[in-house]
């Protein structure tokens, strides 16, 4: 194995591990010393080891249908105080409906909602201790930035002097203190976004709900706002529930990601957890690129690895899952975990998985290739350039052998997609 396996770790995690170190260090909770959430694969539930963390929002058996179409199917979800939780899924998966039920804009057909330990019936949003940042902000067009932000405080009859201090404080945090007299239409998209945030956050909600707040922004602004949002959340310590269909956004911002599909939770876990250990084919293929191999258990080796037939070839598979001999399963591998070798550099091709380079894309940091296996299946590989492999390149149609970093494969026995 010539390439170091760890260079192929996705970029986003490298950023999140130290990027906000200065902000994180001021808080008693942080990504680093936060308890690890252990995923129980059988029940799909997260077991939190840290008992200090309080559940702030709890959904129990929530059902919701629109026009007899089931949108949420017996949804259970616990959200911890102070976390940045993302509801991720394709459109129509029920993530926005979940948010709107917590926010008080929809009522569940059945089930219970607890916020801060209190059973919620039909309380107005602000009586629940939640505030929402809307998808296209819904800033009041006839009011100035100041009046937009002050609106919630005015409605809740906060004394005038307090309103002024609180509004100016939050506007300083979002760096808009010089724009108080502007109308929303005189602001840029990013500024409008920050007004929307300030307008919600100024009310000191227990939980802030964000409904795809970045989707109206262009790509580079989006990246900036992702960072700003994350920093703001750390600074304020408010629980954020964030809805998005953008998996990269979810991975780079969240403490925990809830992957939803067809009104049910597919998987809950840290971004690393859902990316590296997807528990279903849906999660695996929705988050990032992945190669799915058909495999069958042949037996066990002496060091307790599985001997398996993968796409017709005999390989060893390293997994903690207990499988029976003869059991069919799916073997999942991320493109960056694939190991590609030129066949000309391998003396003996006996027993190797072989294929041809069908397409290549130079991505700057990586070289992405599409490889057609001999049995016709197409797989994706993504290799990093490093000192050793500065001139990493392939010819079209070049014969290569395919392997992977042992221990990085994911085994899924569930046949659902």
């Amino acid at each position, binding site marked *: 194995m010539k390439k170091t396996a760890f260079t192929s770790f996705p970029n986003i995690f490298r950023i999140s591990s130290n990027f906000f170190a200065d902000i994180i260090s001021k808080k008693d909770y942080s990504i680093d010393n936060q308890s690890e959430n252990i995923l129980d694969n059988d029940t799909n539930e997260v077991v939190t080891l840290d008992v200090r963390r309080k559940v702030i929002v709890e959904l129990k058996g929530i059902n919701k249908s629109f026009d007899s179409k089931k949108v949420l199917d017996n949804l259970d979800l616990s959200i911890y105080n102070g976390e940045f939780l993302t509801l991720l899924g394709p459109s129509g998966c029920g993530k926005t409906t979940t948010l709107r039920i917590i926010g*008080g804009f929809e009522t569940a057909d059945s089930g219970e909602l607890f916020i801060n330990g209190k059973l919620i019936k039909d309380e107005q949003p602000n*009586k629940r201790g939640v*505030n929402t940042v809307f998808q296209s902000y*819904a800033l*009041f*067009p006839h009011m100035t930035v100041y009046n937009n932000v002050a*609106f*919630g405080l005015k*409605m*809740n009859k906060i004394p005038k002097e307090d309103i002024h201090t609180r509004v100016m404080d939050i506007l300083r945090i979002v760096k808009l203190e010089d724009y108080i007299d502007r109308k929303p239409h005189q602001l840029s998209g990013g500024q409008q976004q920050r007004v929307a945030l300030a307008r919600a956050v100024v009310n000191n909600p227990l939980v802030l709900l964000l409904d795809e707040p970045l989707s109206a922004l262009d790509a580079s602004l989006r990246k900036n706002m992702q960072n700003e949002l994350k920093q703001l959340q750390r600074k304020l310590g408010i629980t954020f529930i964030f809805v998005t269909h953008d998996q990269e956004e979810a991975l780079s911002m969240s403490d925990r990601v809830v992957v939803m599909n067809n009104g049910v939770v597919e998987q809950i876990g840290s971004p690393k957890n859902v990316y590296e250990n997807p528990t279903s084919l849906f999660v695996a293929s929705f988050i990032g690129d992945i190669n799915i191999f058909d495999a069958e258990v042949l037996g066990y080796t002496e060091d307790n690895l599985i001997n398996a037939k993968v796409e017709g070839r005999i390989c060893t598979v390293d997994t903690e899952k207990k499988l029976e001999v003869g059991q069919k399963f799916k073997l999942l591998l991320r493109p960056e975990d694939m190991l590609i070798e030129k066949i000309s550099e391998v003396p003996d091709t006996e027993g190797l998985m072989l294929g041809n380079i069908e397409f290549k894309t130079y991505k700057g940091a990586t070289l992405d290739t599409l490889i057609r296996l001999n049995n016709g299946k197409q797989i994706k590989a993504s290799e990093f350039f490093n000192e050793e492999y500065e001139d990493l390149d392939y010819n079209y149609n070049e014969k290569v052998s395919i392997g992977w970093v042992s221990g990085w494969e994911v085994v899924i026995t569930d046949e659902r997609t």
Partner: protein
Amino acid sequence: MKERNFFNVVTIAIIALWLLIFAFIPNIMMFVISFFERSDTEFFKVAFTLDNYKSFFSSLYFQVLFNSFKMATITTVIVLLIGYPFAYMLARSNFKYKSLLAILVIIPYWTSALIRTYAIKVLLTTNGIINTVLETVGIIDAPLNLLYTEGAVILGLVYTLLPFMILPLYATIDKLDVRYIEAAGDLGASKFKVFTYIIIPLTVPGIIAGCLLVFLPSLGLFYIPDILGGAKNLLIGNLIKDQFLLARNWPFGSAVSNLLMIIMAFMLFAYYKSAKKINSKVL
């Protein structure tokens, strides 16, 4: 391309010609005649005078103008009070065919306005339906004097002009983004405060448009005061009509007509200015 240019020129020319013949020239004629003297034998006598304008500002006619504005204002306020909730419910209803409902508002107005006004007269006369019903039920002993009152005129104006309020309001309320309402609720505004702080300010353009569409015609709708108000309620529209058809004083009728037009033009200008200001705020 050339053919299209030709088509454009022809259509615009037809419209321009129409406006020239049926709007511009008559208005110029009115303007000129208003400075002429009255004649007993002809429609007017060609001799320059300002008397027509001077005599309008005498107390009697000024009273008519004031009375007209009073009636128009009362009418507009009532129509707004009825029309706003009506348009709001129509626009906010979940009914699938709500635009059909909006069309239903107009359908009665396909009948001639004159006939509808006479129908109101039938309702209000001494032996009319309202008096008969009230007497039969026993609420009143003697027939009420409903017809030929200010109330009857206002009723007629309100009924005739209601759709002109409802439709522009319906259009603005229908366009109002429901998320503003949700956002205000999210921030703790009660239903009443959502209405006063969000919905009303954001529908101001519709309110102004509706008020103008009601106020301006109600100054000029002469047949309603004629039929429902009798001789007692002389309004500016009746005054003009009478000058032309009864008194045969064309120059004076033209002068009053011009004054009314100037007032209306001034109001439209004010609307244009305010709408521009509001639109730049809203959009």
